[in-house]
């Protein structure tokens, strides 16, 4: 089975988190290995996310200006993975949202997250290790209650894989 060679629709991405309150995150090599990543991408680990935000890498450069020179220099460096602010419907007893709440309270729990982009039976995985911060509940009366949190990936700990 080959990778999908088509433009994927926006609604088919899903976010999964590694289970248990004290997980052992995948190694950098495992993050690019479909055999390690795909077991995390199961429905029991699904986070009830409304829409997956942009994921990938941030821009990062080091800018240098030398006194007397006419132009500064931008030195590209390896960019950090993008922080993701997630909005989910708030279910107070959702097991995975409780894990996120616990991670935010701790602040030092490294957990592997997996985003799957699905097209029929073709799946592309983006896996990264991250910590959770800014866990908030927004209970506006005119709509369903929202749970918002930010996943901050650890540097250099991400990988791409697929089931092709």
């Amino acid at each position, binding site marked *: 089975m080959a990778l999908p060679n088509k433009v994927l629709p926006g*609604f088919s*991405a899903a976010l999964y988190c590694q289970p248990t309150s004290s997980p052992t995150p995948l190694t950098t090599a495992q993050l690019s290995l479909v055999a390690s990543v795909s077991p995390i991408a199961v429905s029991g680990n*699904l986070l009830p996310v409304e*829409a997956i935000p942009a994921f990938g890498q941030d821009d990062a450069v080091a800018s240098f200006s030398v006194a007397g020179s006419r132009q500064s220099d931008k030195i590209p460096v390896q960019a950090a993975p993008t922080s993701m602010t997630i909005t989910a419907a708030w279910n107070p007893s959702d097991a995975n949202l409780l894990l996120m709440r616990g991670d935010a309270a701790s602040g030092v729990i490294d957990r592997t997250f997996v985003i799957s982009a699905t097209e029929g039976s073709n799946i592309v995985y983006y896996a990264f290790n991250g910590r959770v911060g800014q866990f908030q509940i927004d209970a506006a009366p005119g709509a369903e209650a929202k749970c918002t949190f930010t996943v901050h990936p650890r540097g250099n700990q991400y990988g791409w894989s697929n089931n092709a």
Partner: protein
Amino acid sequence: MATQQNVVQYGKAIQYQLSQIVNPVPVYAAFNRNFATQPKFVVWMLRNVHQPVYTGPVQSVKGIDRPIFQISIFTQEIEDGFTISNQILQSLHGYSGLFGGATNGFQISKADVLWLYNSYNNEEKMAQIFLDCTLDIPT
């Protein structure tokens, strides 16, 4: 994670709840010209049933439902219509709890009633009042 809710339950609950509020005035699920021979009656119509669909291939990842049902009050006396619509406002607007009785009911977070307008149909010789009720149904 919220599975699609059953609109049959919605219909049964609305019918039951409205009947309880305006009793003994009859309540119907759709308008029929034959009813126009009755001095007063209430009709409801359900619309805008929709649980927003979230991202991902799992079908049960959806939001809450906020359906609207329109309540149409038909009376030969205009004041009767205002009395019935006041009964509905007093009972339903801002209501939170079991909606639709013990058998077919479910818990709602909130009912929000919007009094739209009153009118008069000269052909049927009936005064009319229309209200919209939005239900917030947790899943």
